[in-house]
């Protein structure tokens, strides 16, 4: 009996040390981490091959059973954003710049005057939860077409109003990017309405991205500028998004 007890304690200690052993191997600089992360290219290629331009599942009104749970930034504090929020985003402008032939500066009225798309979709947070809501907005492809992308453009980068992090070197504003395959997908919209009402501040007012075949962190909120680029190397730490720079997959299809 005592022996068995010791055996159990011993195996518990082994399990404890076992998991600590893997901590160093999974650190961001280790070679093993790079091996593990190599799945991302395979995952992206496979998913792209399987998905093509298919649509994400859409749901019915009856599936909307609650409000959309906000996550990440829920109330940006920057002076410019606050001023705009107080005046109902009357002065808001969306800038489309970078590798385009005709850069755009679009008011909220300009955006809502464009043909819109409504979709009831499921928002999947990387944490594991899901929430179904109705989103209405202008297809990103429509906005990008207005700006006429150059042939060298490969990615759309989203610059946002919300400071997601305050470090010694200053504020880090949320940034995210998608490639032009996802940018021109019909369900990829710049949403300004949610569940039949103007987009709430907590959910990214006045304009947020919806990329329905990827996880929630790809769907940048509080977007003020869309920049078309040919490389993500100079953005943040070079991985293409705030969360990708912190170890998450840039392609968040899984």
């Amino acid at each position, binding site marked *: 009996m005592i022996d068995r007890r010791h055996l159990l304690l011993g195996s518990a200690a082994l399990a404890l040390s076992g*998991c600590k052993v893997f901590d160093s191997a*999974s650190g961001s600089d280790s070679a093993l981490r790079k091996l593990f992360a190599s799945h991302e290219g395979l995952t992206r290629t496979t998913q792209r091959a399987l998905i093509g331009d298919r649509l994400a599942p859409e749901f019915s009104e009856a599936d909307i059973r609650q409000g959309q749970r906000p996550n990440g930034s829920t109330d940006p504090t920057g002076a410019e954003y606050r001023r705009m929020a107080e005046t109902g985003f009357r002065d808001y402008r969306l800038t489309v710049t970078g590798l385009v032939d005709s850069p755009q500066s679009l008011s909220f009225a300009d955006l809502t005057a464009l043909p819109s798309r409504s979709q009831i979709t499921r928002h999947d947070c990387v944490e594991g939860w899901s929430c179904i809501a109705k989103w209405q907005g202008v297809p990103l492809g429509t906005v990008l077409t207005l700006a006429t992308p150059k042939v060298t453009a490969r990615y759309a980068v989203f610059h946002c109003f919300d400071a997601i992090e305050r470090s010694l070197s200053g504020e880090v504003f949320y940034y995210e990017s998608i490639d032009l395959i996802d940018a021109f997908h019909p369900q990829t919209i710049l949403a300004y309405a949610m569940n039949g009402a103007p987009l709430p501040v907590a959910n990214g007012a006045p304009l947020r991205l919806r990329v329905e075949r990827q996880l929630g962190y790809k769907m940048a909120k509080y977007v003020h500028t869309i920049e078309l680029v040919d490389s993500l190397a100079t953005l943040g730490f070079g991985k293409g998004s705030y969360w990708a720079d912190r170890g998450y997959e840039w392609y968040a299809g899984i």
Partner: protein
Amino acid sequence: MPQGPLVYRQRLITRIAHWVWAVSLFFLMLTGLQIFNAHPSLHIGKEAGFQYDNAILEIGARQDGDTLRGMTRLFGAEFDTTGLLGVSGGEARAIPAALTIPSYQSLATGRVIHFFFAWTLVGTLALWLAASALNGHLRQLVPTLADLRALPRDIADHARLRFHHSAGYNVLQKLAYASVLFLALPLMILTGLSMSPGFNAAAPWLLDLFQGRQTARTIHFLTMLALLGFFAVHMAMILLAGPLNEMRSILTGWYRTDETHD
């Protein structure tokens, strides 16, 4: 110890696949628990209820005066699980550090390792399936009519810890291995894929099959528990049936059978 002849029981591809699966499942489970810790609730349905309750399991922490208490709610009944679930090592975390990789909270790292080993599992499973279909090993895992007739006796023998060492698998072994390889692992893979918003576009029928992404996530978790149960029984059987002989057969392929008296 059995005293009969040595037989070549497991081919190289089966032995290699076995150990790749063992390593993969070890990492998949412990990184899976890391991922679970980011949202330690299991729901039934398409979404997670925040303004209504569709959770069958919820693990959390609650401040109780000076102490932090770990609480687990299972089918509406609440239990204090401080030290194990909800609160362990003095911090609020659903699954304790000893059972997650990495031991500290890092969803990003857990995901990277989880998906890497998901690929190694799926890859070796596919290779092994193809090879075993060709070399006839698959047939050795399917119980025959004679096997099923022998089932009551086999159960009785196992219950009395009376093990027979023969070249083929006994019927309980066949049923156990076949349910892991042809039921549990495919279910793990399909429920895992059902959680991928990308794969949902490729195969929306999977969401209908599992009745929603959150139900798929719950089934993924429950199947993990079933696999853990298989692992416990698997280890017990090895210890009881003769660990040296069993280890030799899964490392070298050679297995010592019982003496025959005919």
